[in-house]
């Protein structure tokens, strides 16, 4: 708690220090200065510590922990697990990303229905638990390489679907993911846009989410990031953990293969 307060003060001081004189720089320049100043002190660490506790804490109607959760590498294996997601799971017969897989574990091990996470507002209720657990899990893949070969037929199918969805336009502004993320070195306002159709851009994007967002002081999971992309695309609301979000995730992850995982990231 004390650490939180100190960190908080530091962030406020920093953002007031950094913001005005670097106005003409891109968001990434500003963030680099900010990251350097913070060094190892990403506020996402607080979520990570909470997540580690929640992983081991008996919860839900079954009063069970998540310690037997299988994220793809065996029961309870967290190390390197998120580097290899999304992947196909036989027990659910679905390709799952980290968050949809955690919902499966919460349901089967703890008896918490998936709807409790899906229906909770961002950062509240079961989604708050999810944020912390995600922060914990992704930190255990930090420094590893993205490894999503998508060799299984179910994974191949999802990958192909994800690529199509990436280019699928809709809504009153005709936007698709590709409208902003298919060309190198483009910006919206001062915000750099990664080209997610190429390894370098996909590695930068996929490799640095989930992340702590300085502008709103929130930890955002990949599902949250995708949700806000669709909001800005003027699309309707993507259901948490839906197939469209997982297909896009496996497309991005596959493109990012071999890239270093920097999660949790630190963002504007």
């Amino acid at each position: 708690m004390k650490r939180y307060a100190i960190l908080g003060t530091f962030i406020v001081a920093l953002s007031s220090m950094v913001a005005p004189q670097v106005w003409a720089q891109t968001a990434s320049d500003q963030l680099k200065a900010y990251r350097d100043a913070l060094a190892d002190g990403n506020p996402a660490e607080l979520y990570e510590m909470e997540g580690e506790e929640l992983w081991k804490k008996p919860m839900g109607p079954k009063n069970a922990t998540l310690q037997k959760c299988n994220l793809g590498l065996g029961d309870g294996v967290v190390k390197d697990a998120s580097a290899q997601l999304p992947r196909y799971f036989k027990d659910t017969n679905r390709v799952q990303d980290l968050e949809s897989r955690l919902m499966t574990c919460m349901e089967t091990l703890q008896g918490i229905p998936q709807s409790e996470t899906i229906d909770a507002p961002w950062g509240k209720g079961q989604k708050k638990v999810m944020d912390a657990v995600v922060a914990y899990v992704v930190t255990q893949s930090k420094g590893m390489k993205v490894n999503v070969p998508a060799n299984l037929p179910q994974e191949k199918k999802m990958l192909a679907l994800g690529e199509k969805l990436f280019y699928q336009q809709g809504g009153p502004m005709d936007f698709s993911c590709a409208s902003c993320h298919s060309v190198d070195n483009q910006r919206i306002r001062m915000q750099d846009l990664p080209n997610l159709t190429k390894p370098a851009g996909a590695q930068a994007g996929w490799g640095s989410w989930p992340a702590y967002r300085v502008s709103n002081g929130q930890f955002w999971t990949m599902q949250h990031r995708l949700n806000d992309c669709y909001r800005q695309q003027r699309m309707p609301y993507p259901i948490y953990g839906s197939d469209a979000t997982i297909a896009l995730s496996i497309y991005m992850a596959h493109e990012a293969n071999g890239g270093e995982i920097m999660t949790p990231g630190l963002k504007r």
Partner: protein
Amino acid sequence: MKTQFKLMNRLVAMGLVSFAVATVSQAQTTDPQVTETLNNSFVSKGIANKDRVKPDDIQILCSDKVFLQSPAGQKRAVELQAIALKEIKPPSDGKYLGEWKAGEKVAQSGRGATWSDNEKTVNGGSCYNCHQVTKAEVSHGTIGPSLLGYGKLRGNSEEITVYTWNRLNNSKAYNACSNMPRFAHFDLLSEKQIQDVMALLLDPQSPVNQ
């Protein structure tokens, strides 16, 4: 005789093949799996109705890059551009140019049409999201070309004025898969807002042309 028969057969076969290709290109549709996934993955929220996942003709064409680059796709693009151009209405009061100061506000605002907006939200043009517009505003995107000096470089002939009006109303009239939204087609901007953005681009007093 035998050779002639063979030739006939080949001609018929070729005819059938080209007929089949033509049929496919005319009935270009979205992959059923994409449609099903979109239907299962989205819900309405606020003003962002679920219908928005359903692509119109332009969106179907522009979502399929491979088809778009084929001769049939290019032909379709020209057809859809003509339809878009025909739909554009000239200004109801005959005035193409409004006030550049109001236009600058429209250009600055990126609000509107998301599920976190509502019916009362005044939509912006989001111009600066993608374009450099004035020297003073350094926070601008680079997806679209710079519009600095737009009117100064092009003059204010009738041709340029009408072209600019059409572009703002429905950019797809000139490029079926332009990244720019169809501001009039989807009622994103009012006629007055478009007139004001016109002035921002073409009025010699506007900071765009200073």
